[in-house]
């Protein structure tokens, strides 16, 4: 009997169709069984559905699968505009590194800059223009704006463009050209982290508004008043590099600058200072006046400003400093982070009077950072309130979030006839604007920058924009009837303005341009020849110091990472431990232990602080080394939309949200500032805070803060644990082994446990150079696909960072010292982890690496228990790694670890392999410096050196014989591959 439904195998039984039922005979059973089996086999062979892996039909010339392409560009993380290299793999940027050739920043890059690559893949970024809240097409926007512009050419109402200091020369030219078309057009530059008083002071003294280009490498004596120049002030990467250059002690005669920091809170810079003087912010002006008087007297002049007389607390310190500055005339530097004009006038005067202006305080070369004017901000507010603004364009600024006064700007902007806001995310300002235009990510656009007059750099796109973005310059040209692309506009501007000023004479514009794009920057001839003469009468504006008060002062400061809050949507930066407090995912009210006792506050109590009508409810953090009578709160928190992070980290039933839905990460303290004497003051007097009765957990990556054992658990006179070696420069000048804990007599029962036939990788970390800036932490995170785990996991001490920076306090309350110690896998030769692993998942290789074999790991955690450095990280969960877009940032060279296995620093084994492959392709041995780990590469201070001990000429081999070298916990016999270098402080200001 023939089957009447043969051939229907693929289609299956027709639904509802007439089909005789022949019964199920043996034949059809076998057929069906065979078909099912074959189908199951075919289905079973396909282990995992391959998605969207579309090969190139025509391979782009520059794309080689598996090989990165590097683009030189300019960092858009802040106004410092450091040089960067963008690593592209398969068409997508996966890492940002410093451009080693860059004259200012060198090869280093700060945490913020490196984290920018993650922001690129932020799915919350705006992608389309919004007209009154509704998505619309660019044509519609153009029509609305140009329609409004035609009504403004008469000049009855003004056109205002508000930006921060980010815009580069071409954008500035576009702004200028655009505004020139209107009788009342003005460009207002305001920085959220304002240095307006510096510019104002120099305008008063030199007749020109600028921020000097500070060169810390030229300074032998650095006096800093609240300037966090290693952390957040102006150009931290450049400053860190220069600071380190001025503190090189391994030469035949140790030469080290002497750094005195006057500050109220414990800043990153203060934590590195040779001497740190704790003062209230409202006392600083008095101290500056006194210092000026002392310096003047020393120079045989009568003081140009009122002398407040001896300072009861710090007279000795000021006298010492005045003597040091005087002795090192022309080789000193006074900087001040306060936005207080009279203070900045004194600083400008001191640098002038001490002859520092030709050297470390370079007046001939103005910095492009933070050139904004707070007075202009105040004027813009007045104009807006008066209804005199017909069109307001805001770009690279978020005034509704960070201008002083709650709701001030939001109320004012509504009075503009039309407001246009460029924003990367829906933000506080965009939510009150008529038109919101999506702002491209710095890795998506052409742009340029001019951090100093003799250096211009290009920003080139490394990927096609994800959204329908258009830059400010492009919009302005288009609205002015001159539709050019960004690249055309930049080339046009450069050809006309920068090319003629090029430092190298030869070459056509095209070669100049191509070289610039290739290298990332172009040297130009210095623009300003003479800084002008110092106008002494400006000092008349410096009045007396005012009365001393004991009122409580609220100080507001930016944090490393988030800065003014512009990076609040970046989870890497939110989870980057503060270099000093080690807190993540929050801001807090930090107070000194004495003030906490005074106010009856305990750690993590929530207090309500009410500066000028703004109410801030924040948890308390007790901070050693902070001035009594002050409360310090970080800016940059409380950003709109940060409740997106409520679901960050693993989800399980005891998990606590990083932020509750509808709330924000931290609280916005920017509006608590006040406009005072023409500038946004960074401290305000506040009434005594009240306790709300609640508490909030602060997630910190470090629970215990000192190398001295807790009181009661060790003898009173007990020595601190010998984990860090420290010495003063004076002692070091006498003996290069000063501060050493002595060599241990090590007994080794396996002297030849490992053979290293080809390479033996090792690292050294110079604690004198390391500032604790945490650039390496983010560098490592980006390179090694380290997940973000959220606040709850961090508070459970389960952060995943392979490289952490241990920070230890020492000394008493009046003089708290800080030591930073990067801690990562020590790649011990006798690794305690290796012996205990039951499955041989962690083994030593013949190049000295302690390897973790993820596939072999069953996750007993015994290795981590047995690690005296506790640098191993266990995958407690399958960590969510953001959405599909955020996962594009993953480095394809590094495995993404699954839950239940151990991981840790690999010495960037993928980079070692890459270096070896490159050397082999070029038929040469691996040279010193061919392999740089991500942390070494990112370090602005070049504190980390990585290399091959088998190469006797390598830097690392030479460092082995450095008398400052010590190994942490050497006495346990682990034989670590990482050597630390003694931390030397120039406390006495002596200089060998």
């Amino acid at each position, binding site marked *: 009997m023939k089957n009447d439904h043969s051939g229907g195998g693929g289609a299956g039984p027709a639904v509802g169709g007439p089909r005789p039922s022949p019964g199920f005979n043996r034949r059809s059973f076998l057929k069906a069984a065979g078909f099912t089996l074959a189908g199951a086999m075919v289905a079973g062979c396909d282990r995992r559905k391959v998605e969207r892996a579309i090969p190139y039909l025509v391979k782009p010339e520059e794309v080689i699968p598996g090989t990165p392409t590097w683009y030189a560009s300019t960092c858009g993380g802040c106004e410092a505009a450091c040089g960067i290299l963008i690593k592209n793999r398969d068409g997508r940027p996966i890492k940002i590194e410093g451009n080693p050739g860059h004259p200012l920043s060198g090869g280093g890059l700060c945490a913020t800059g490196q984290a920018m690559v993650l922001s690129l893949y932020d799915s919350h970024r705006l992608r389309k223009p919004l007209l009154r809240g509704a998505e619309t097409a660019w044509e519609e926007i153009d029509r609305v704006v140009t329609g409004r512009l035609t009504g403004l050419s008469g000049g009855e109402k003004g056109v205002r463009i508000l930006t921060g200091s980010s815009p580069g020369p071409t954008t500035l030219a576009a702004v200028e050209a655009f505004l020139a078309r209107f009788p009342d057009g003005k460009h207002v530059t305001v920085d959220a982290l304002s240095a307006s008083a510096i510019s104002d002071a120099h305008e008063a003294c030199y007749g020109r508004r600028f921020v000097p280009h500070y060169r810390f490498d030229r300074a032998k004596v650095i006096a800093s008043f609240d300037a966090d120049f290693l952390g957040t002030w102006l150009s931290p990467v450049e400053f860190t590099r220069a600071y380190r250059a001025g503190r090189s002690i391994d030469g035949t005669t140790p030469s080290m600058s002497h750094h005195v920091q006057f500050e109220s809170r414990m800043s990153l810079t203060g934590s590195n200072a040779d001497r740190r003087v704790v003062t209230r912010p409202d006392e600083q002006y008095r101290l500056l006046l006194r210092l000026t008087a002392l310096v003047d007297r020393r120079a045989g002049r009568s003081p140009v400003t009122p002398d407040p007389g001896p300072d009861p607390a710090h007279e000795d310190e000021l006298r010492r400093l005045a003597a040091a500055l005087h002795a090192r005339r022309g080789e000193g530097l006074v900087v001040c982070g306060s936005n207080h004009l009279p203070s900045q006038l004194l600083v400008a005067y001191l640098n002038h009077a001490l002859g520092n202006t030709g050297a470390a305080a370079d007046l001939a070369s103005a910095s492009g950072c933070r050139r904004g004017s707070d007075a202009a901000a105040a004027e813009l507010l007045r104009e807006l309130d008066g209804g005199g603004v017909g069109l307001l364009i805001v770009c690279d600024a978020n005034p509704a979030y960070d201008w002083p006064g709650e709701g001030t700007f939001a109320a004012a902007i509504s009075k503009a006839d039309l407001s246009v806001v460029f924003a990367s995310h829906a933000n506080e300002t965009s939510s009150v604007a008529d038109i919101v235009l999506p702002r491209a990510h710095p890795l998506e656009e052409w742009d340029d920058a001019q951090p100093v007059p003799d250096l211009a750099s290009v920003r080139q796109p490394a990927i096609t924009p994800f959204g329908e973005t258009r830059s400010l310059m492009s919009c302005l040209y288009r609205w002015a009837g001159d539709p050019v692309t960004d690249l055309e506009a930049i080339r046009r501007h450069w050809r006309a303005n920068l090319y003629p000023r090029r430092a190298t004479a030869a070459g056509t514009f095209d070669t100049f341009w191509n070289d610039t794009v290739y290298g990332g920057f172009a040297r130009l001839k210095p623009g300003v020849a003479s800084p002008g003469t110092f106008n002494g009468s400006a000092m008349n504006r410096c009045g007396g110091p005012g009365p001393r008060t004991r009122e409580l002062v609220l100080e507001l400061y930016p944090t490393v990472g988030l800065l003014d809050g512009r990076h609040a949507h970046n989870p890497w930066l939110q989870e980057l431990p503060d270099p000093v407090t080690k807190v993540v995912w929050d801001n807090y009210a930090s107070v000194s232990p004495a003030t906490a006792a005074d106010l009856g506050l305990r750690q993590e109590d929530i207090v309500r602080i009410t500066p000028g009508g703004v109410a801030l409810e924040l948890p308390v953090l007790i901070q050693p080394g902070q001035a009594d009578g002050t409360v310090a709160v970080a800016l940059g928190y409380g950003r709109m939309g940060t409740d997106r992070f409520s679901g960050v980290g*693993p989800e*399980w*039933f*005891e998990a606590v949200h990083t932020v509750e839905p509808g709330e924000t990460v931290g609280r916005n303290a920017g509006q608590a500032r006040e406009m005072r004497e023409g500038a946004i003051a960074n401290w305000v007097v506040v009434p005594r805070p009240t306790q709300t009765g609640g508490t909030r957990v602060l997630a910190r990556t*470090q*629970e*215990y*803060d*000192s190398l001295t*054992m*807790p009181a*009661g*658990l*060790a003898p009173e006179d*007990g*020595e601190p*644990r010998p*984990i860090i070696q420290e010495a003063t420069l004076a002692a070091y000048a006498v003996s290069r082994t000063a501060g050493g804990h002595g060599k241990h007599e090590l007994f080794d029962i396996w002297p030849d446990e490992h053979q290293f036939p080809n390479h033996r990788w090792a690292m050294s970390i110079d604690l004198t150079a390391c500032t604790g800036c945490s650039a390496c932490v983010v560098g490592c995170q980006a390179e090694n696909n380290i997940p973000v785990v959220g606040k709850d*996991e961090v508070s*459970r*001490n*389960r*952060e995943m960072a392979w490289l*952490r920076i*241990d*920070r230890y306090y020492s000394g008493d309350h009046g003089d708290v010292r800080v030591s930073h110690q990067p*801690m990562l896998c020590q790649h011990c030769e006798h690794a*305690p982890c290796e*012996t*205990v*692993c*039951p*499955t*041989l998942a962690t083994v030593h290789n013949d190049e000295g690496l302690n390897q973790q074999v993820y596939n*072999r*790991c*069953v*996750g*007993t*955690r*015994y290795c*981590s*228990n*047995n690690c*005296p*450095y*506790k640098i191993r*990280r*266990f*995958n*407690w*969960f*399958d960590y969510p790694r953001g959405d599909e877009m955020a996962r594009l940032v993953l480095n394809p060279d590094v495995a993404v670890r699954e*839950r*239940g*296995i*151990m991981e840790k620093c690999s010495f960037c084994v993928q980079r070692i392999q890459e270096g070896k492959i490159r050397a082999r392709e070029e038929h040469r041995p691996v040279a010193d410096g061919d392999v740089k780990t991500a942390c070494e590469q990112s370090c602005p201070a070049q504190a980390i050196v990585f290399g091959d001990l088998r190469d006797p000429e390598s830097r690392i081999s030479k460092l082995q014989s450095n008398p400052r070298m010590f190994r*942490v*916990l050497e006495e346990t016999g*682990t034989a670590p591959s990482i050597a630390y270098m003694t931390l030397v402080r120039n406390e006495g200001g002596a200089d060998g």
Partner: protein
Amino acid sequence: MADPTTGLRRPLIGGDKSYADVTREVCAPLERKSPAAWWMTISAALAMLVVGVVAVTYQLRTGIGTWGLNNTVGWAFDITNFVFWIGIGHAGTLISAILFLFNQKWRTSVNRSAEAMTLFAVVCAGIFPVIHMGRPWLAHWVIPYPNARGPLWVNFRSPLVWDMFAISTYFIVSLVFWYVGLIPDLATIRDRAVSKVKKAVTNFFSFGWDGSNRTWHRYETIYLLLAGLATPLVVSVHTIVSWDFATSLIPGWHTTIFPPYFVAGAVFSGFAMVLTLMLVVRKVLHFEDYITLHHVDAMSKVIIATGGIVALAYATEFFVALYSGNEYERFTFVNRALGPYAWAYWIMVGCNIGIPQLLWSKKVRSNVAAVFVISLLINVGMWFERFVIITISLSRDYLPASWATYSPTTIEIATLVGSFGLFFTLFLLFSRFLPMIAIGEVKGVLKYGRPDGKEPRE
């Protein structure tokens, strides 16, 4: 042939029982309907077990992160429970093997239950090394066998591999020993069985025991051999478990005293657990004549002795830490006593050193309720001993920056509860289906201490 000592010693078994009495009384719980009390207790035990199963299932699905462990404290409740249960298991082997070899005849009343307890405790213990793994589905990777994974071998330097050998050996030998001891009693049950099924099953498991002289001879030979085989295990298992810590680098773990210290502690806790269980069994199943006050007294004395060793170990540890001049070691011990977990340390000291001293008093030893409470407290103390060693040492080790506090999550507590649930469930099932007292052995000592060596009534 009268025993010359007859009349000088108390009988081991009270109540002037005949052989038939013994058989009847020991088999009684197996043959009557389960009383309501049994149903209630097993329901409670099963409820605890279910809590544990739910917790472990959730943990296996979600990750070890559902425990309170952190980067610094990689083991806490998990390994504490593991060592605790392994320790509990020690009394069984000690009673059955070492006391057998030393001809301590009083062991016959308690050895069956103690051995069963050992097995169940090892089952409970064995769960933890598996579930504490990040990827427990690969737990077999710690076993060396020819494989297609490279082939990759285990790391014989790792104490965890030694553990695997030690515990599996211990479990197998204990199981065989217990089972061999059960054979004559299974035959007794068979002979008394009414239902055909029960007869067939017990006949199968008693290997067709015929009670002949030759069978008894073979039986006693193998029992002696097994006792010899099991004896070294009493020492080896906890020695090897202690090497998990002793061979490491962590102050508070890295201690040569650990093997004897752990073995003594294990016997200490094991006897406490035997007492806890036996005192309940004695009361509920009316075994007062079998488990006499003399037994309680003897076991209390073992507890005093091993408790003394434990106390000495605590003191030695402290002394060595202070005397060594090793600042890390010294700090670890001061931190145990005075640091943030001092409460755990003092619970341990109080329960393990303080409380057992009460047993020096004859009055206390003969007060069943008091001994019961003391045995419970010793169990608590010994759990805390392992917690103190494992968790406090880890939480503050070398680098102060990585110090971290640990607190357990609900899941961990539920898992601990579940392990007790499993233990009690198994023990209650045992009490219902197998004779809790070795009938054959008890009969052998029935005439012990009777005046003139009089044979019991037939």
